[in-house]
């Protein structure tokens, strides 16, 4: 259970912004933080992990107070049990994969967790490699494994998948879900990718200009309200072909292209790159066996 309520005045090139966030996250949930860059997502993670200090606020995790500015309580990052996967992975360049994981061991902690994680994340063959020789996906797995060595209660993932190609992403999403369940973590993931969020998250917080503007189940937040159509796909518009008043919209859903005919809406035209929800009644599609 994470109970968080913080405020911090941030100075950005674009001006000042007040980060003001309240969250109440049940233990074991998978939470996504969604929002434009500069909305305060990474800062929120840094405050939660103790790397940054808010102007005021309170953070209570599983009945332990990590921060309470009123009572001058502020646990340093070393004392907060947080696994943090940084956007740039932050692997130590001077250490091999094995050494990176060993470094994360706490005083007196048996080393078998390192072997367990090496196996779980399929890192065995990379043990003696230095981070600079690894691919993006491999670095990500090492960073994830390293974050889990100290058996944290909370796992913070700062957009770790954004630099990876589609196939690698899907694979790593599965790794993340696997460890989330296996180690009973409360996981917070920063993501821009709607389909990723819909696949992974129980709860979504939409952060904009330092405030939570929407929260709830991802599907509900993204569609704003429930829609009864049972065939719902989210994707990204790839192209829009106009023909008279009709538009043929090509949408990338997962790695499949879908075409949808729409009547052109002059007020709200669709553009390539738009995130869209495609909904249809369950009565319409036909199903054909292919294998």
């Amino acid at each position, binding site marked *: 259970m994470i109970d968080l309520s913080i405020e911090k005045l941030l100075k950005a090139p674009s001006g000042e912004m007040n980060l003001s966030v309240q969250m109440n996250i049940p233990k074991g949930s998978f939470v996504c933080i969604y929002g434009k860059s500069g909305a305060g997502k990474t800062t929120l993670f840094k405050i939660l992990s103790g790397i940054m200090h808010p102007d005021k606020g309170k953070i209570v995790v599983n009945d332990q107070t990590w921060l309470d500015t009123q009572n001058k309580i502020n646990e340093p990052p070393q004392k907060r049990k947080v696994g943090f996967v940084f956007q740039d992975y932050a692997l130590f360049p001077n250490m091999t994969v094995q050494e990176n994981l060993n470094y994360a061991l706490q005083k007196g902690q048996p080393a078998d967790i390192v072997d367990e994680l090496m196996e779980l994340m399929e890192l065995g063959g990379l043990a003696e490699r230095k981070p600079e020789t690894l691919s993006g996906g491999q670095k990500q797995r090492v960073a994830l494994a390293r974050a889990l060595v100290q058996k944290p209660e909370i796992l913070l993932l700062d957009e770790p998948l954004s630099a990876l190609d589609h196939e690698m992403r899907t694979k790593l999403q599965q790794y993340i879900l696997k460890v989330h369940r296996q180690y009973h973590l409360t996981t917070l993931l920063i993501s821009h990718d709607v389909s990723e969020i819909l696949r992974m998250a129980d709860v979504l917080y939409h952060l904009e200009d330092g405030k939570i503007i929407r929260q709830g189940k991802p599907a509900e937040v993204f569609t704003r*309200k*429930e*829609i*009864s*159509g*049972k065939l719902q796909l989210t994707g990204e518009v790839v192209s829009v072909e106009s*023909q*008279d*008043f*009709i538009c043929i919209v090509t949408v990338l859903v997962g790695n499949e292209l879908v075409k949808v*005919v*729409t*009547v052109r*809406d002059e007020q709200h035209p669709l553009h390539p790159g738009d995130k869209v929800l495609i*909904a249809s*009644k*369950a*009565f*319409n599609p036909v199903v054909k066996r292919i294998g």
Partner: protein
Amino acid sequence: MNTLPGKIKDVSVSGSLSLAHIDVAGNLFSAIVIDTPATSSYLSPGKTVSVIFKETEVIIGTGKEHAVSLQNRLQGKIIEIESGDLLAKIVLDTAAGKVVSVITSQAVKKLGLKEGLEVTALIKTNEIMLTA
């Protein structure tokens, strides 16, 4: 996409399917959905919902009485016709608001549709989506 405001009058449930009757500006609409009041909170009498259906699913009939199975009917006046090579877009002004229909240009000609004409828009029950 046509979106019209309505209010749920009654819901009959059978298994995981529900047939809802919705009052849309005095016209009784029916929609069949794979949801029940237990799974969807908006599915209960008295709730305001939006009735959603696609332009290409709107059938146009001239005259008033139609001996067809379609239950959802809205009468209105044609205020705009835009004909393309194959398809035509027809905008109706109905008691519930504007409704857009896309039918073949051939059908427009055959029925002699033109602006100002009073027609009926018909939508199949299974083409209607509901949203809270």
